[in-house]
Structure formats: C-alpha cells, structure tokens
C-alpha cells in the first residue's frame, strides 16, 4: 500500500538495486575524474612487475634480431623451400589482434552500445600497438631488412616502383593506412580527456597535456565537429579493418600453394582476427581492472557482455574453419587434400588438434554465467583462446611448406630455432611494454564518455522507474 512520498522513494530504491547495472549511475563526475586520473599516478605493484618483465622479454627479442641481422636468416633455421616460419605466423596473429579495438569502439559506437564506453579506449590502444608489433615482424622477416624501403612507392630517379601486383605491397599499404587511421581515431577520441588531464595536471605534465589537448574547451562548436568527425572516422575504420585482414588473407589465398589457395580465407581470417582480439580484450580488461583499480568502471556486467561477444565470434570462426576443411575435402584437389591430411596426421598434428580444441571447444565454457562472472577463469580462458589463435596462424603457414605441391622438396624436419622463438617472445614483450606505458601516461578509461554514459542512463532509469511507479499506483488506486 503506497500512499506517501516516502513509500514511493523506498519503492524506487528497491527497483534501483534489483537489477545489476553496467555502471553505478549515482557516481559523481568529479569522482570519475579522480579515479581515472589516479591511474596516471600510482598503479598497483603489479604494473611495475609486468612492465619490467615485458622490457626484459623485449630485450631478448632485440638480442635475437641483432644476431640474425648480423648472421643471416639461416639462424632462424628456415630453409628452402620452408622459407616462412613463425615470423609470418605471428605477424598474422598481431594483425588479427588489432581488429577488436576497431570492433569495440567503431562498430559498437555506431550501434550505440554504450557499455563499450568504459573499455574502448584501451581496446583502441591495443589496436595501435599490436599493429606496431605486426609491423616489426614484417621487418624481422625480411632477408635484407636494410632495404625495406624498396616496398614504399617513392618517386626515384630510375622510375622504379614496387610491384603493385604483390599482396605484400597491398599489405604494406593497408597496414600503413590502418595504423595511422586507428592512431588518429584513438587521439581524436582522447582530446576531451586530455583536456581534463591538462586541467588537473601540474608542472611538466601540464605542458605535455596542454600541448596534446590543443586547447580543447568543450565548447558547443567543438563538440559538434567532434561528434561528426568521430562518427565519420568510425565509419571509415570498419571497412578498413575488414579489408586489412582480408588482404593479409590474400597473401595466402592468391598463392598457388595447397592449404592456402582457399577462397574462404578472407572471412576466415577476419573472424579469427576479431576472435583473438576479443580474447585479448578480456585479458587486458582483467589486468587493467586490477592494476588501476578500475572496479567501478570495468564492471562484471561489461566483462560478461564482452565474453558473450567473444563466444559469438568464436562460433563464427569455428564455422568458417570447418567450412575451410570441408571445401578442401570435397573440392578433392589432390595437393590441397594431401596437405590437409598431412596437417591432421603429420608432424604438426598435435599442434593442429590443439588449435582446433582451443579455438572451438574451449569457448563453450563461456556459455555458463558462472564462468563468465569468474575473473580468474576468464583470465585463463582468454589466454588459452589466444594461444589457440596463435597456433592457428602457425598451422596455416608451416604445414603447407612442409608438404606442398612438389614432393621432392617436402621438408618434415624443419623446426623453428631458438632465435625465432626468442623474437616471437620479444614481440609480446614489446607489445606489453608499449601498452603499459600508454595506460600510465594516458587515461585508459574515457572519462567524458563514462560521464555521458552515467548521465544518459540516470535520466533513462529515472524516467522508466517513474513511469513504472505511476502504473503501479494507478493499479493499486483502482484496487482500492
């Protein structure tokens, strides 16, 4: 029986706590600034542990590369015809990793899924840095890295140009486009927050942020232009992201080699990319949440939503994966079929099966709410998924070389040397290092967008709650 204003308040309160929210709506804006800006000051100890560890790992990679540079690619234990190895595999892996940033920020932005707001910033950062890492691998892989600029189409006195027919040149263009565009996207989206940093920083940092924030004042004119630009760039980024990984896929799909020459490769690669990217987001989500005490913003419901998204993409990937096998099998092309059988039964079989298990079976664990809400479990799963996706890339590259068209040159003995493994490990160090640095220097949660989120949601809920109460009152009134 509700008849007094107090009762009504209580009822509203009840409904407030009934459903768990993506984010607390009564959180004060000043508090948001405070919390996020704190992440630029004093993170937990773990931050430094991760940072130092990554630095060390990176150094290992650098050492290996220097040795390889001096001695020649032979130290990678590649051979004729097994000329590509972990470098290319890991290159694809990092390119793939970069896709989810765009997915989260651009696609969800267009779809007005506002739960992305607290987490898209670091996802975009991830995009940028994994692209940088991928770029490194192109270099590391080259036999004469000191001549890499031959790939660039720069005017020269001899009128020699790169071969625009080569998928590698498409790669170079696409990656360059993607890298710069996503950096711009990241930066534009960060300007209002940089302004906030500027307003709260002192000393050297103040100069730094002042410079970066370009004198942003949040005037209506700025906001209007900002809104349009952000949306436009987002619209550009989505097809770009798709095209980038399709092009990487064409590196293989346009070649004649069995196991590569498959028309379903581009979508397959894109799905794999989003897949590994989402898994990576979950991992970093959990790490940042702990390291920077972001429990308020990176809440369990958001984690769960991300998990659901990952699960969906995992299923898409699984489907395309099976399509690849099926089409190879029924296509009944001798070379391709032999290559497929070799993958499943030959020297790479253990890794191939592990890839399939991790990529297609493990994600089902995320079907359970219990698992989705269990942070340690999600951490482990997300890492497992990425291991699986890395294996997938390796299983695309190596078995084809080991068991290609020409039987005389089949090579079943090749195994990556410690140098290759070292450089691959180094790349992870490099990525983590950059990422951690970024999170330390820039707000890894978008403050103004969280404010918007809180603002709009609070308005929304207030209205819905109010209306529902009124209905109840009406009902009860009729009853009495």
């Amino acid at each position: 029986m509700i008849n007094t204003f107090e009762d009504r308040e209580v009822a509203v309160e009840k409904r407030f706590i009934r459903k768990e929210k993506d984010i607390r709506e009564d959180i004060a804006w000043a508090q948001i600034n405070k919390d996020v800006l704190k992440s630029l000051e004093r993170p937990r100890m773990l931050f430094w542990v991760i940072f130092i560890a990554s630095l060390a790992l990176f150094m290992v990679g650098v050492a290996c590369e220097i040795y390889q540079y001096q001695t020649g690619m032979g130290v990678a234990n590649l051979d004729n015809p097994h000329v590509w190895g972990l470098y290319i595999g890991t290159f694809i892996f990092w390119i793939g990793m970069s896709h989810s940033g765009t997915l989260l920020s651009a696609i969800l932005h267009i779809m007005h899924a506002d739960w992305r707001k607290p987490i898209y910033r670091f996802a975009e950062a991830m995009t940028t840095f994994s692209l940088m890492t991928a770029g490194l691998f192109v270099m590391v892989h080259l036999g004469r890295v000191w001549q890499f600029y031959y790939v660039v189409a720069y005017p020269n006195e001899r009128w020699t140009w790169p071969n625009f027919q080569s998928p590698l040149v498409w790669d170079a263009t696409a990656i360059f486009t993607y890298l710069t565009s996503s950096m711009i996207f990241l930066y534009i989206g960060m300007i209002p927050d940089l302004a906030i940093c500027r307003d709260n920083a002192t000393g050297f940092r103040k100069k730094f942020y002042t410079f970066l924030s370009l004198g942003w004042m949040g005037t209506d004119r700025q906001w209007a232009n900002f809104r349009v630009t952000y949306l436009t760039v987002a619209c550009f980024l989505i097809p770009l992201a798709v095209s980038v990984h399709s092009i990487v896929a064409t590196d293989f799909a346009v070649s004649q080699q069995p196991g590569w020459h498959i028309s379903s490769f581009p979508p397959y690669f894109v799905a794999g990319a989003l897949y590994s990217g989402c898994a990576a987001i979950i991992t970093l989500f959990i790490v940042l949440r702990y390291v920077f005490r972001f429990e308020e913003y990176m809440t369990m419901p958001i984690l769960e939503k991300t998990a659901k998204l990952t699960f969906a993409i995992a299923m898409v990937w699984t489907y395309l994966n099976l399509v690849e096998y099926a089409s190879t099998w029924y296509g009944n092309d001798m070379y391709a079929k032999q290559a497929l059988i070799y993958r499943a039964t030959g020297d790479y079989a253990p890794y191939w099966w592990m890839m399939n298990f991790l990529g297609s079976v493990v994600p089902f664990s995320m079907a359970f709410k219990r698992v989705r809400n269990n942070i340690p479990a999600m951490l482990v799963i997300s890492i497992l998924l990425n291991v699986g996706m890395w294996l997938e890339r390796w299983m695309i590259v190596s078995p084809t070389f080991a068991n290609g068209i020409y039987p005389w040159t089949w090579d079943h003995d090749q195994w990556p040397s410690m140098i290759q493994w070292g450089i691959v490990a180094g790349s992870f160090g490099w990525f983590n290092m950059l990422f951690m640095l970024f999170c330390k220097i820039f707000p890894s949660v978008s403050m103004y967008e969280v404010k918007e989120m809180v603002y709009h949601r609070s308005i929304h809920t207030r209205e819905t709650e109010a209306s529902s109460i009124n209905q109840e009152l009406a009902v009860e009134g009729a009853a009495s």
Partner: protein
Amino acid sequence: MSITNLLNNWSFYRNKRPYRGQYDLNRQYSEYKWAMALDLDVCTGCNACTTACYAENNLPVVGKKRFQHGQVMHWIRIERYWDEKMGEFPEKGASFLPMMCQQCEAAPCETVCPVGATSHTNDGLNSQNYHRCIGSRYCSANCPYKVRYFNFWNYPSTAWPAPLPDQLNPDVTVRTKGVMEKCSFCVQRLNEAKSRARTEYRLVKDGEVSPACVQACPTSAITFGNIVDPKSKVAMMWKNQQVDLYKDMQEKDNTVRGYRILEDLRPFPSVMYMERIRDMEA
C-alpha cells in the same frame, strides 16, 4: 607524361602475357625466347650438369650441416624417384628428373614479389635482380617447383676459402646474404652471345650458345635454343612433340613424349620434358 601515354596505348597495357605473337622474328616484342627440351630417356642422372652449374654460376658449397638444414644452393638438382607401385626391387630402374627454374611465361613468383625483383625479360627469361631483392621469400613460397634458393647465410665470407675465389666466374656476381637466387639459363652467356650477334647485325645462331648444364651433359639430354626461330632444334622438337608454349593444356597423341611439368597450374613453363621410356617386355 605518363598519364597521357597511359591513355594512348591502354590496350597495350592491358595485354596479358603470354599472348601469341609476343615473340616473333620481326620484333613484335622480342625476337628471342629461350627454351629447353629435356629428354628424360637419355638422362642418366650423372650430376654433370649440377657440377657444371656450380662452376659456371659461382654456387657456394654449403657443407654438410647446412645441406641437412635444406639450405643447399644447387640451381639444378637431379631428383630420383622410385615407381609408385614398385615391388620388392626397382626392376624398371629409377626415374631421374633434372629440375631447374622452368622460366615460366606466367611465373607465379613474379606477380608476388613486392619490389619487382623478379620479373620477365624481353627474351622470355624469368630474371632475378639481386640488387632489388629484399628477401621477403614470397617468390619461393609461391614457386610450384621450389627451384628458388635463398641465401640464408653470408656465403661469400665462408664458402670459398682462399684461393678458391680465384675460380669464381667474373661474369656472374656472388650473392650476399638475404637475397633469392635461381637458375638463370646462364643469362651471362646468352647476353654475351646476343651482343656479339648484334655487333654482326644478325640473330644468335642455333647452337651458338648454351647454358653450362646443356654444354656439359654427356648424353646431350638437354637441348637449348631460341624457340622463336622455327628452324632452331628446340623449336622443331617442341613442334614435333606437339607442345605449344602458349597453351596450358596440350592435346597431343599418346605416342608423343613431350610434356611440361605441373602444367595444370598454368605457369606456362619454358622447359619441355620428354617422357622416360621403358621396355615393358624386358
């Protein structure tokens, strides 16, 4: 400049190699097209061609360990196959197959090189430009015959202990680490012959020039020449064997021996092989 001439002869730019008449004696595109015919029935697998290639083209001796790692640099290799349905013993002997770069007309390696280091020459060779190569190894990855060899090590510093460098052929460069290399049909010899012929206002005569392997082969299993010249031996052999350079699938009598390896991949190789014969009554 470029745009105008682009518009002027658009059709020329859209012409897809190999097209009939691309090579002909009245200089449509080039009056040379080097080709080979290799008779597998008289090839004894003696490796004389391989050694000749080492001598002519400054191929490094890589040593046991690197050979084991598959980093050997033989531009021409002799493959030995046993028959698939061989009983207890190989009663019909072995099958030897000398495999060198097939100088494909539609070479899979050429299109994928990011820097255009490998491309087609006017006289129909699949050239490899060491100075341009950056070692992406995509060409090798896409080569169906796997006849491209990558310099995984800095061989010039290790492969020729003094005074072995004195033997190196000054007409052929020594390749450094990180570049791809492959059979060139001894292009240095071809160029010498061509320039000699040019100074005498004539074309290179048939048999005037031949790659080292052809020259060495004790059984003369390999025939080399300019297939554009209908009177050259190699052209006559191709014709006689009913193998057409511009076709990707030959319709020929089953008594005829000529064929090109992996033709179904449509690389249009410039090397015609002639089937090995065995006396089934024996």
